[in-house]
């Protein structure tokens, strides 16, 4: 079975055009309110959002444009993993040998079906989440692709049975 390849939507053109936000810049209370409202409903009209937090529409428009331009916040559509046909979702611990965990993690991150990668301390060197259409495809990704990345020594996968919550609010943008 073919690997599901979601289309690349987060292209270099769009991301590199963004001005990096000064890290840890403090947001003003009004910005926090706008963000909180947009976490609830990302498609709320500026006019309704303005009414909700009791400021004028122009303020909302200007503030939001600034938040997006500095890459502090993005308002995006997120796809439901199961609605996209991914029925096999694994959390995979990775033990690395002979290469830095960062380099191995960067290779893992290139795989479309790997949706999160973190260099970790604790049980293993890396933690990754892998999505697949079914167990057969998951096996192929783990056995034929990930296991052969240079520096990957051992894999410790666990299968998600029922995901009760997956609600990303923070991400590297």
């Amino acid at each position, binding site marked *: 079975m073919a690997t599901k390849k979601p289309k690349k939507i987060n292209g270099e053109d769009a991301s590199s055009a963004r001005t990096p936000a000064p890290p840890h810049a403090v947001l003003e209370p009004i910005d926090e309110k706008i963000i909180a409202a947009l976490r609830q409903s990302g498609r709320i009209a500026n006019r309704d959002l303005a009414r909700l937090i009791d400021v004028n529409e122009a303020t909302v428009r200007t503030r939001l444009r600034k938040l997006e331009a500095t890459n502090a916040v*993005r308002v995006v*559509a997120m796809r439901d993993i199961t609605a996209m046909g991914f029925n096999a979702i694994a959390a995979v611990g990775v033990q690395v040998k002979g290469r830095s965990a960062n380099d191995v993690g960067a290779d893992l991150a290139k795989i479309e079906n790997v949706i999160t990668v973190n260099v970790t301390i604790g049980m293993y060197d890396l933690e990754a989440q892998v999505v697949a259409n079914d167990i057969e495809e998951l096996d192929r990704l783990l056995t034929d692709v990930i296991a052969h990345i240079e520096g990957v020594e051992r894999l410790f996968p666990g299968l998600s049975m029922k995901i009760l919550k997956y609600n990303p609010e923070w991400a590297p943008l």
Partner: protein
Amino acid sequence: MTRIPLDDLDQKIIDRLSRDARVSNREIGREFGLTEGTIRSRLKRLLDNKVIRVAAVTNANRLKNPFLAYLWIEADTAGDIQALAERLASLPEITFVSTMLGRADVLAMTLVENGSQLTDFLHQTIDKIPGVRRVRYSLGQNFIKHDFRYCVLVN
């Protein structure tokens, strides 16, 4: 979960909104050569059927020293797992909860800014949840990838 079939237009709309979801229906319609009404009804169908959600994602670099804590939780008994997972999912600090086949009974994730914040959270919140036998954790020190194009919509 029932799934609705998605055609190319649905996929195009989702792709467009995955880049920037503040674009108006009229603007999407103009880009695709379709009417605003078509886009509006398609989008309503996608949202109503929980195929997508549209929400703000904040750049993790706004946190001082963010690390993602993976909490691998063992339940007292197998019968406690479901209620325990539901209880974890109800906590606002926790962004991911899944019951597991292997590694642990439940995996939960939370973003914290320092070790003492994590310690407090583990001792004062997680350990007090009935049915928690043991928590092992790993700490994500370098967030290489988080594909925010995905989520799970739970009723």
